[in-house]
Structure formats: structure tokens, C-alpha cells
């Protein structure tokens, strides 16, 4: 049923079985565990001791395999990517962020023709998050290629161009122009931008339209193809299935959730476009739910995005089956977050004796038929 994931877990099954079942609870409460309790009541089968047990040989964080295979030859050096729209074209942060240490860069949404975007104000802070309605301002695909592709080609980090459009034809044409351009490692199909009038969202809320645009782009390019899902739907599963069946290599979940904010005097909506997309920590439970559902509906990798701020968020998304995460809004507060998360993920794996972060994936999914059980039967009486 899920060949990809089975392949991943089966290699590590003997230890993964133990690890996945037992330390899942203690991992959260490790900080609260008192050393006195541990010495007075030794319980060898519980807690971090179980996971440390196989780690006879110390593993250095640098030895941990963080590589992610998103299909069609797209290999990320680590599973922490930066999200489209929050990292420009990769050059804006300059020396503050070492782009070569990122897992992947999704550039600003790119359309066939230049777009001037929505009238300001375009961003505002909301409780635990922010709303944005940029409206896909960008100089058009040709200018993007001319200005940035040469720089991208010199980076170790793959750059995935986020592609938006108002019609199937536009998506296809942009994809065709990106095909074969050195420095372009893949395409992320943005069929879920809530901030543009025509097109945009309409492809993301209908399984038929989503499948159609995916299939059309698939025929136009051999580039690795990610498709970004919208949370503004009743049921994500048929849409995810349609996209996977149409030949997408991976899914990205999720885009922003549509919302509005009011002006200080409450006499009108605050944003120039009235509607904006909600992002940030406030979005995380929604993203977690949609990743959880999408992962079980399709056989292709899912890249999670939605409120990732700290390592626990990364571990949560991996646990519900994502193979990688994108960091977005958190970059605005601290641009060094993505690199720090990659380091922390490697350190956590090393500490738990894991040689590959893949062992953290899908530990919280219900056992499916034909999937190796991760329940630790050896601990049952």
C-alpha cells in the first residue's frame, strides 16, 4: 500500500519497533523527569534508557542521515525547507542565513506575466500568527529565471520554484519555461493561493480541477513536481488522491487558511485585499490534521508546513507521516530558525541512537493493513 514508507521503516524495524512505541510518551516529558525518581525506581524498560540501550557506539550529529528523497531525483540535504513567500528568491537575507545549510528553498510564487499584487496593507499580526495578502507580486517567470537561476545553480541547496497561475495554460507555460533551466531543482505547484481573484484557489478545492492541472504540468516537464494543498476545503483526501494519481511526485500541506482582520477603528477590513491567508503557530493543529489525512490517502511523500517554529513541531509533523517540513512565518521572527532546526534534529537523532531521521516518520499513524506494526509487542505481558 505504501511502498515508500515500508521501505524506510523495514530497514530499521528491529530497533524502530522498540523506539517508536516506548519513548514516545517520555520524549515529551524528558525535561520534567527527576533524576531522583530514576535512581530510586529503576525501570529499565521505560524511558530514554530503552532508546539509549542500542546506542553502544556513540553517534555524532554529523553522522545522522538527514537526506530526503522527494522523488524524480530531488534529494534534499536535510528535511528543513524554507516556505514560499517567506524567503524571497533566497538572496534577500544575505549573510544572515547560510543558504547552503537549508534543506530546500521554495521561492516566491511565480507567474507567467509580471504581477503587481494587492494594495497595501498586505500583512498584519494576529493572535499566534499573521495574515498576508501579497497577491502574488512577482516579476514573471522569465525575469525570475534571468535574475536568479544563475545564482541558484551555484548553491548546494535545491531551489524549488513555486508556480502560480490563473489557468491551466499558464501553469503549463511557466513549467515549460522552467524545464531544463540550470538552478531550478523542482516545481511547487501553488494551486491554493487564497489571495488572488481569478484562478488560484479554484484548482485546490476541486479534485477534478486539481488533477487536471497537475496532469497538464506533469506532461509539460520532467522536473520534480510538488503540489501545495489548501486547507480551505471540506475533505482533503479526494483532492490529494487526484493530485497523486495525476503524477505529482510529492504534496506540500498546507497553504494559508483564509481570514480577515479589521482596521483599528473597525470601520473596514484592515487588509487592502480584505481577505488574507493565516499562517504561523496558530495554524499548526490544522496543518497537523491535514498532513495526517493526506499521508494516509496517498503513496507519495508529503512535505508539511504550518506553524513550524521549534523542534517539537518538526517531530510532530514527522510523526504524522511527513518526510520534510517547511518553515515560513517563523523566519520573520528569527531567520536562523531553519538551520537551527536541522542541527537540533540531527542532535536529537544522535542522542537517541538513530543513524537516520527517517525512523521518526509516521510513528503516530494508525496501523494500516500491510504496514509493519510499530506497536512494541515485546513489552506486553
Amino acid at each position, binding site marked *: 500500500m505504501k511502498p515508500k514508507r515500508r521501505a524506510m521503516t523495514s530497514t530499521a524495524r528491529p530497533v524502530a519497533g522498540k523506539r517508536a512505541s516506548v519513548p514516545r510518551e517520555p520524549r515529551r516529558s524528558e525535561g520534567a523527569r527527576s533524576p531522583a525518581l530514576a535512581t530510586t525506581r529503576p525501570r529499565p524498560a521505560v524511558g530514554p534508557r530503552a532508546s539509549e540501550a542500542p546506542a553502544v557506539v556513540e553517534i555524532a550529529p554529523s553522522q545522522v542521515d538527514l537526506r530526503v528523497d522527494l522523488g524524480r531525483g530531488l534529494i534534499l540535504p536535510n528535511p528543513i525547507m524554507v516556505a514560499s*513567500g*517567506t*524567503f*524571497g528568491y533566497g538572496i*534577500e*537575507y*544575505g*549573510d*544572515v542565513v547560510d543558504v547552503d545549510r537549508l534543506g530546500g528553498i521554495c521561492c*516566491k510564487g511565480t507567474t507567467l506575466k509580471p504581477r*503587481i*499584487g*494587492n*494594495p*497595501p*496593507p*498586505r*500583512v*498584519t*499580526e494576529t*493572535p*499566534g*500568527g*499573521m495574515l*498576508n495578502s*501579497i497577491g502574488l*507580486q512577482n516579476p514573471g517567470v522569465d525575469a525570475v529565471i534571468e535574475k536568479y537561476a544563475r545564482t541558484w545553480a551555484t548553491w548546494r541547496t535545491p531551489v524549488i520554484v513555486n508556480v502560480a497561475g490563473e489557468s491551466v495554460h499558464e501553469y503549463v507555460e511557466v513549467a515549460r519555461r522552467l524545464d531544463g533551466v540550470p538552478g531550478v531543482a523542482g516545481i511547487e505547484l501553488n494551486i491554493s493561493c487564497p489571495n488572488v481573484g481569478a484562478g488560484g484557489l479554484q484548482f485546490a478545492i476541486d479534485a477534478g480541477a486539481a488533477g487536471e492541472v497537475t496532469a497538464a504540468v506533469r506532461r509539460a516537464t520532467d522536473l520534480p513536481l510538488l503540489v501545495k494543498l489548501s486547507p480551505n476545503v471540506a475533505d482533503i483526501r479526494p483532492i490529494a488522491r487526484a493530485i497523486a494519481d495525476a503524477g505529482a511526485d510529492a504534496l506540500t500541506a498546507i497553504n494559508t487558511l483564509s481570514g480577515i482582520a479589521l482596521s483599528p477603528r473597525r470601520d473596514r477590513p484592515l487588509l*487592502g485585499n480584505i481577505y488574507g491567508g493565516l499562517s*504561523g*503557530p496558530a495554524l499548526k493543529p490544522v496543518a497537523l490534521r491535514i498532513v495526517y489525512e493526506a499521508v494516509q490517502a496517498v503513496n507519495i511523500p508529503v512535505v508539511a508546513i504550518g506553524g513550524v*517554529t521549534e523542534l517539537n513541531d518538526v517531530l510532530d509533523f514527522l510523526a504524522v507521516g511527513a518526510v520534510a517540513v517547511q518553515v515560513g*512565518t*517563523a*523566519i*520573520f*521572527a*528569527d*531567520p*536562523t530558525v531553519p538551520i537551527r532546526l536541522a542541527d537540533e534534529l540531527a542532535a536529537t537523532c544522535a542522542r537517541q541512537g538513530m543513524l537516520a531521521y527517517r525512523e521518526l516518520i509516521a510513528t503516530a499513524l494508525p496501523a494500516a493493513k500491510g504496514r509493519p506494526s510499530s506497536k512494541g509487542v515485546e513489552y506486553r505481558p
Partner: protein
Amino acid sequence: MRLASAELVDSREILPGQWLQAYHAPDLAVGSRAGQFVHVRTGDFSGLVLRRPFSLNTTDPATGIVTLHFRVVGRGTEWFTRLRPGDAIDLLGPLGRPFEVDPRSQHLLLIAGGLGIAGVRMLADEAIRAGRQVTLLFGAASARDVYPSSLLPDEVEYVVATDDGSLGHHGFVTELVTGYEAWADQAFACGPTPMLAALAQLVAGRRDRLGVAKLGRKRGGGKTVAAGSPAARRKSFLQVSMEQNMGCAVGACLGCVVMTTSGTPQRVCREGPVFAYDEIAWEGGW
């Protein structure tokens, strides 16, 4: 641009709801120019996900002290007022492009509306250090909101207008400008957008009023320079410092744009916050 840690040295409420804070940030105190700003992180990310952009109010390279002047408008700015000396904050900066002063300009007119003083305050220091004469026109709602003259360099001529007439000129600060437009070589303004728009309109007619419209070459008239370039701004009589809701402040998110007369939105954080008055499409134009 760099990420720097800054330690709070002094924090005072200088006007009702307006705070002046001094931070020790040697990295920023050196090499920052008037008109640039910093993007400051609040402590509580779970609730407040965005940094706050603040103008660099003053910088002192000798002591490494940077001051920020802000008004409490919400939970983020309120958080800063609770900091105590010794607390450290995280600054990203210096960001944006500075005011461009023509080397030949001797008389600088600064125009500030309310908190807009924070945007032009540092230019007064720079200009006086360079031996220029500075007149500051300041507008506020009433006397209680007027920036204390003790916080300005002695050399600055300080003229005040209040909306209610409780101090200085009774009316808008823009009404004072025509009295200085013949004296001034260049003007620099920061304040509410309607004030800046009124100034831009005023300045557009200045050459006709002064009778210099047809006097031929002045300020390198014949050469064409790209709009928005430092050289073009240096030649402009009026430069304005714009404000906009901001996301990343480095040009990545395109959240803080203003429409320009060229028909392309420009980023306040990257191409701005300082613009020549004739770059901005004051009517919007979206």
C-alpha cells in the same frame, strides 16, 4: 545587515505613551545612516510572531549606544516598555536605504509629524556634524505631545505647530513649510501619510512659486538618472520616509510595498523607507 544582540541601558517615557530607549549595540552604532531602521524581535514568539520595525532615532559610534523612539500602540510595543536595564533584545539591521543629502546643500529643512520625529532625528545629528544648518518643523496634536527641545542638538532651529494651538503655530505643520522653502536647499519629512502627501503637493509647485522654474540648470538638470537611485534622490528637493505594515523587513515577503509613479510597487524595507517625493503615487493607483 546583521543580527545583533542589544542590551537595554535606559528606558524613559518621554511623552504620554511615547518611549525613548537606549540600547548598547556597538555593531549597529557604527555604519548606520540616518533614515535606516532596525527590525526588533519581541520576546514572546508564541503570541507575537512578527518583529517590529523602528527607526534608528540616534546612534553614537563612540559609546555604541543606539536609541529607539516609539509609541505604545499594541501588545508588541507594550512588551518593550516592560524591559529593564540589562535585558537583551535581538535586532536585525541596519535596514533600508538612508536619506541622501546633496553635498552642496547647506540648509536642511526637516519636517516631522508626531512620532515621525524618530525618522528624521538622526539626520539632524548627521547634518550638524557636517556643518549644515538645520530647521526642524514639528507638528503634534497638542502641547503635551510636543517633542522636548532638550532632546535636540542646540544648533537645530525648532519650530512647533499644534493642531489645537496650545503651543506654537495653530494648525498643521505643513502650513509652516512655505515660509522656509526659499531658505531650504533640501527637505526631509517623516510622519502620517496624509501629511507627506500634502507636502509632496506643496513641493510640486515650489519652483513656480519661487520663480526658479525656468532658470535653467540647477542640481545637474540635464543629466538623467534612474528614478529611485541614490543619485536621483539626492537631487530631489523633498525626501520622505514612508511607513507600512512589515513582515520580513529584508525584501523577501513583499508585505510592505507602496505604489510608485512608475506603476511598480516598491518595498518600503528595501527600496525605502526613504523615497523622493515624486516617486510615490500618492493617490494609490492600484
